[in-house]
Every structure is written in C-alpha cells, then in structure tokens.
C-alpha cells in the first residue's frame, strides 16, 4: 500500500474545515494514518477477509459468547 501523502492530508483537512493543519501537522497525521490503514489492509491480505462476517454491533455479543465459564 502506498503511504498517505501529507498534501492529501492537507486537502482532506481543508475540506473538513481544519485550516490549522500545516505541513508539519499533515506529515504527522499522514504517518499515523498510513500505519493504521496499512494494518487493516494487511489483516485483509492475510486471508482474514473471511473474518468479515460480523458487524460492529456483534462485538459485545461475541465477547459474551466467548466468556469464561464460571470456575
């Protein structure tokens, strides 16, 4: 995956009204967002697409299904 460029971050920030985002801030945001999005892509590429079977509303239900039985 290509990294998210600072100039793209600045454009996105401006489009969302964040005029304060300068070049330095855009670089930090780009680095953080690139790493985060890369983890999603890597998880999908690792054959985990089959894991896309639940929506987020199912997370608590999954936790409860996997709960430890009483000792």
């Amino acid at each position, binding site marked *: 995956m290509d990294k998210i460029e600072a100039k793209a*971050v600045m454009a996105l920030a401006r489009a*969302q009204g964040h005029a304060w985002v300068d070049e330095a801030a855009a670089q*930090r945001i780009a680095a953080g967002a690139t*790493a*985060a999005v890369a983890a999603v892509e890597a998880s999908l590429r690792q054959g985990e697409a089959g894991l896309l079977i639940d929506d987020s509303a199912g997370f*608590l239900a999954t*936790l*409860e299904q996997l*709960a430890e039985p009483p*000792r």
Partner: protein
Amino acid sequence: MSLENWSLVEVADAIRSRLVTSREVVESCLARIVDWQPRINAFVAILADSARAAADRADAAIVAGSPLGPLHGVPLAHKDMFFRASRRSSLGSHNAPPAWGAGESSLLGRLDAAGAIEIGTLNMCEFALGPTGHNAWLGDCRNPWHTDHIACGSSSGGGAAIAARLAFGAFGSDTGGSVRLPASACGVLGLKPTNGRVTLAGMMPLSPSVDVPGIFARSARDVARLFGIVAGRDARDPRSSGLPVPDYEASVEHGIVGLRVGVPRNYFLEGIASDVAERVEESLRVLAERGAVLVPVEVPAPEHLTELSRVLVYAEAAAIHGPWLREHSEGYSPQVRVRAATGLAIPAAAYQQAQQLRPGILRRFVEAVFSRCDALHLPTLGIPVPTLAETDVGGSAAMWEKIAVLVRCTAPFNYLGLPALSVPCGFTDNGLPTGFQLVGRPFAEATLLSIAHAYDGVTRWSRRAPSLPS
C-alpha cells in the same frame, strides 16, 4: 502498620468495626496529599471540605446503626473525566467544550451508593490522549518513586495517587493502556475490564468502541471489591453487558494450582529491556512455585492489533473532537491536536473494516490462546519507566515511535476487548517499578484476580511505598 498503608478492604473493615473513624482516614489522606501534591501533581482538585463532611456523615451513620455499603467511609479519587452534575470536569484540558462533562457518571453513582467518599479528582493526559502523563495545561504528573520520571498515562494521577497512599482506590479509563501503564510505572495493580463489563455512561468518551473504565488499587482483593461494585448492566449504557456478575472478592481465594499460565512465544517478549525481562521471568517462577502450569503459546497475528485499535480510536476521536478542534485548535497541545485529527485521514471504509474484522479476530485469538491456557502472561511496559525529558516529544516526528514503544504490550487487548490486569513485580535497574500483565478470556477477571492474589500474597510488591522526595 500506619493507617495509610492499610489496604482498601482493611480500612473499610476497620471503619465498619469502629477501629478507626472515616474522619481519621480522610484526614490521614488529606495530610499526605498536602505533602505529596506539590511534588507529583496527582490531583486536579482536592475536595477536602466535602470529603470531611461526607466522613462525618459516614461516622454518624455507623453510630446510628444504619445499613453500610462495602465502601462505607473509604476515600477514593478518580480521573477527572467522570461527570457529576455539581461540577465541571477538566478532562485534562483548559479548553474543553462547555457542553462536555455535563451529566452524572453511573460509575460514580454506584460508588456513592456503596458509601465511598470522593477526596479529589485526578490528573490525566489532555482528553485522555497520551501514554506518558505530560499535561501542558494542568502540569505534568510525576512518578512518586522518582519525580524526574513519568507516571505514564493517560490516567497518570491514578497510578501516582494510589502508589503514594493518597487514596485507597481510584478509577481511570483505558483505551490503549491508560490504566495498566500508570499502574505498572507506579507499582500498583491496574485492571482493564472486558469491554462492556463496566458502564461508560457519564464518562468522557475518547473512542466509545474501545474505551473502558479501569481500576487502580494496592491488592487484588481491593480491585475485586471495587470491581464487584461497578460491574454489570447499566440501563443508561446500551454497550454494557447483562452477563451475571460473579463474587470477585470470593474468587481471589480460589487458588491457582493447576491453572495454565500462557507464556507468549512471539511478539510480546521481543525487544524488551533485560531488567524488565528478568522481573517478568521471576514472576513466572513464583507462579510456578504456587502451582500454576506454565505453557508456551503462539499468539496469532499480534503485530497488527495495535494499529487496528488506532483505526477505531482515531476515527472516533476525530468524529468527537472535529467540530471543536476546527474552531479551537490553539487550545489543544500540539501532540493531542495531531492525534485527535489523525482520523480525518482514515478512510471510512478502513474504519468499517476494522470494526468488521474485530469479532472474527477476537474469536481466532481466543480459540488459539485460551484453548491452551487460562491466562496469558506478558510484560505491561517493555522498558524501564523513562524520564519526563526522554518522553517530552510534543508533536514532533518522534511522537509515533515513542507512543508505540509504550503501548506495544497493552493496546492489542483494547482492540480485542479482553480483560487485562497489571501486577507489580519489582523494580528495574533505575529504581522504578515494573509489572507483568495477565490477559484472560472475555469476562475472566476473576481468574486474573486469583492469579494476582496468589502472586502478590507472596511477593507483596504492591505493599511497598515510595518515600516522600526531599
């Protein structure tokens, strides 16, 4: 043993049996706060007058033979992000939107009903975004064991205050390690419960999918008592679980003979400092001597979990902070401003995928790990507690790397939503505390507490107190 070194359960029992008054306990804490606060800056507000009045009411109730809750007359203090209608929380900022912080925390309501006394509100990182304890607006919280060092964060005041014996228990929040890291750095226990086990209603949201309130205390039994009071379904929080709440305090006595403690073969022990590794190894030997069975465990795909968590945290934080940040960016410190805005550059599809992957990745993790062991054992913080200067990177290019080192062993379990407990296990070569972490199946806090109790009952690291710095 002097009063401040009693555990929460010991002091609650002493108040109930009229061995000591609540007023005496509160005065003892307030006297220590006067000495310690200028040195470690653990508190945002010290509620001396209201705490004294509450203590007098508690003592009168005992004399009158009124029904007493399990925390009757016991002084606690909490991260300044649990709301009360009677005051405005700082949220670690000088710039919080006026509407934020309105309402009433369900968690504080349960503690009130149990008879607890709130002695103050605790320092925290700005908007709970930061693992170090720096705070440009409220002043940095410092480690009571050595004030040049960080207390870690974001619930920095919780670790520092409980270690310094300024209260008998505290609540913070844990979205990436924000309870476990300060607990480890300050030498106390820190519990991050299973997501959904404790209500979020009336607590400042950072990332509601990932946030969970957590507990600081000085013994497993103390954690168990506090946890048993706040755990369980809350009609005000649709994300809270309705599963029955076990008797955590009774469960700490279950013993650990035959319990399988998993030692990760991959990722979590890679690159940790040698003195941290030695303490963690020693803690495993103690657990084995107490009857636990050590089992090597291969952890499935741990390397992406922290970043997957960040997708959720940053997207949700940007959604929450976006409108205020757009108009008041100068009121945020540089690092927090950038971190709160990182979600602006995370595509909606990536956020949705991270949410959709979460149940499946959790299921795979639980099946792979907890089919082989009852609890996973790993470091909480893989390096000795650094200094304030070493971690004062602001919004510089070094920011992400510094954060990643600190949360490497904690943030994965926020994505997975699993319970995790940090337990003190000695001191590194720089004289600062370190801890190991126990991670369990969903809702397996009772198992983690029983292991911690068996360990700490022998080593008693959590009973060691820092000396007042000169």
